């Protein structure tokens, strides 16, 4: 950390020498405790380099997006906006509403340290348009160590057969096997985890990135749907409608064995004073050895103001700084997009994830490759299927496939 200070000071001098008004109005919806603390890392670094941060935070992604789109259409966009690095930004790029940050990106990031799939996702027509803050992985399994001990499970199950055997043991011990958040968006995340573990990386990318629907007709996909359906036998009656954090609380209180969800739930464990690897364990969804990643990024609307363009470049540079990347992700519970950073501050779960990113064992989440409308259709189908055990695999697959028609 000390070593970086001279560098920071140098940059500070450079930016102040420009004598520009580097005010950036930044739209984001990172307002909860841990998220806000993570944003502060960026704000401090941005301010230290001569920028002036004006916060335009709106709680909740949906309301934030609605307010942002209205301002964009009215020709008065903020300087930067956080978004999932995917169609919600690329559609605006296609409309010619966004600035690229290609120069700033390449100045800040040496070639080869950002995974190629992520680089592809933020590049349009050969130019980088987004500055990713970090990635979240959706196919995690968090488990309560005391519950596993009590049920006599030695280690985290590695295959689905082992998983169901372990869940049976937890059931026999009189506890709830899976802490299930019965809302379709959570079920959608779990379903994609099951799909990746069953059909493999190549087929997953073929389906969700290249939109090759033939993958859905393979027996492996059917197998994934069946495995997912089997999870119904291991949830408690209170699961429908349950919030993700209420489900996490069940694992924290050692009332339930596992929760399958994204790594953002780690914040809930740390708030409760639990330590990864000691009180709770983490492992990928059984049968998988890759991460399903979802990158968050800053995107930069065209403002028609040269000062704001400079502020955008500075913000991109700050966000991509290795030190900021590491500090931000440690607090937010995400994984940095750069592979050349100091990983000592991360917990065991993040260490494992960083290892996978370095080994290029990552696939892109459907939210990064397909429109929100298609992803919404997925959630509808998955939610309906999980709630209704009498729904046949065929009719689920038909409905799931129909989601792709949402464009």
């Amino acid at each position: 950390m000390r070593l970086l200070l001279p560098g920071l000071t140098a940059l500070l001098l450079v930016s102040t020498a420009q004598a520009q008004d580097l005010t950036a109005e930044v739209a984001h919806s990172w307002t909860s405790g841990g998220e806000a603390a993570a944003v502060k890392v960026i704000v401090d670094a941005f301010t230290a380099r001569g920028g002036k941060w004006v916060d335009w935070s709106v709680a909740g992604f949906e309301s934030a997006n609605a307010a942002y789109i209205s301002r964009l259409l009215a020709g008065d966009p903020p300087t930067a906006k956080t978004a999932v690095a995917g169609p919600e930004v690329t559609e605006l790029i296609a409309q010619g509403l966004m600035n690229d940050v290609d120069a700033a990106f390449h100045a800040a990031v040496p070639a080869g340290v950002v995974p190629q799939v992520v680089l592809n996702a933020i590049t349009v027509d050969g130019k980088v348009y987004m500055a990713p803050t970090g990635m979240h992985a959706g196919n995690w399994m968090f488990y309560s160590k005391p519950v596993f001990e009590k049920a006599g499970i030695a280690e985290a199950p590695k295959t689905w057969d082992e998983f169901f055997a372990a869940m049976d043991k937890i059931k026999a011990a009189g506890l709830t096997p899976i802490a299930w958040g019965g809302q379709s968006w959570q079920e959608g995340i779990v379903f994609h985890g099951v799909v990746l573990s069953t059909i493999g990386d190549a087929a997953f990318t073929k389906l969700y990135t290249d939109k090759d629907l033939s993958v859905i007709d393979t027996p492996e996909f059917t197998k994934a749907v069946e495995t997912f359906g089997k999870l119904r036998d291991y949830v408690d009656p209170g699961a429908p409608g349950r919030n993700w954090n209420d489900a996490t609380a069940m694992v924290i209180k050692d009332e339930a064995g596992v929760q399958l969800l994204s790594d953002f739930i780690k914040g809930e464990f740390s708030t409760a004073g639990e330590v990864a690897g000691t009180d709770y364990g983490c492992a990928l969804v059984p049968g998988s050895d890759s991460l399903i990643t979802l990158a968050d990024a800053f995107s930069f609307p065209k403002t028609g103001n040269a000062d704001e363009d400079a502020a955008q470049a500075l913000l991109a540079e700050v966000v991509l700084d290795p030190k900021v990347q590491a500090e931000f992700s440690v607090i937010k519970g995400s994984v940095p997009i750069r592979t050349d950073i100091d990983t000592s501050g991360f917990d065991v779960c993040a260490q494992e994830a960083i290892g996978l990113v370095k080994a290029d064992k990552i696939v892109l989440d459907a939210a990064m490759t397909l429109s929100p409308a298609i992803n919404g259709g997925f959630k509808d189908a998955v939610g309906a299927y999980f709630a209704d055990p009498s729904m046949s695999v065929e009719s689920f697959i038909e409905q799931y496939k129909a989601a792709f028609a949402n464009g």
Partner: protein
Amino acid sequence: MVDQPAARIPASSPARTRATGRLRLPVAALAALTPAWLIILLVYLGTTIWTVQLSLTNSRMLPSSEFVGLAQYERLFGTARWTISIQNLLTFGVVYVVGALVVGFLLAVAVDRHVRFESMWRTVFLYPYALSFIVTGLMWQWLMNPEIGIQATMRAAGWTWFTFDWTTKSSMAIYAVALAGIWQSAGLVMVLMLAGLRGIDADLWRATRIEGIPLWRTYISIVLPQLGPSIATAFMLLTMGAVRTFDLVVALTNGGPGQSTEVPAKFIMDSLFARQDLGLATAGATVMLATVMAVTIPILYARDIWARRRAGTI
């Protein structure tokens, strides 16, 4: 009342009489009403027209002007969730409207029997209406949660056979939403009915007593038919509320389990904001507008006829 000053202006000023001719426009009144009319025309009508227009384009995240005919409507009715939402709305609408009318009427009759502490009861029954649907939804979500709500309480008290888990059962969840809705709206119906009941001629009551007609028969055959306008008003308010139902579902079940409590308004909001699918959302909104108009216009027309018949103009 408003006509008077306007009518006097031309008389007192010959120049103006010539200028405005024989039209005798109520200038002051019109001037006063202009802002209101502008708001109605621009804000309400304008956005309505814009919504309908957007539903005929291929708009996604941003409004587009590329006309695609009825393609969005085709897509809408080809979406499983929309058709399920409509079925749910029908079930919910019938149970909610009939339920609120019946409960509201019974409450009104009970209060109308000159019970003690009448005004207290009136306040108690009307009170839920003062709550927002979000509060009602959240409260009933807790009450109906099988692990912390009524079921858990009853079982803890020894009635282990007791089951009340509607919100977690796909087949019953929509009735759970209707129950919460009735709890909230019955008070409003009661007040409307009570006003109608108080308008009934006291002689009528005396006559039925002398004739020895049983009380229930009096209410069903004599009182109820006279409550026509009150019932129509309550029916219209409830139906419009039912079609718009959004916050209650969001707070109570969020559309689940599965899609068993999804409603059209929620579909529209989701498409509009979370799914950035403007075209589909506006198509759904247009269908809902048409539905509301199909229900309210005949009722408003019928009420107009009633009123005129009473006034003796027909």
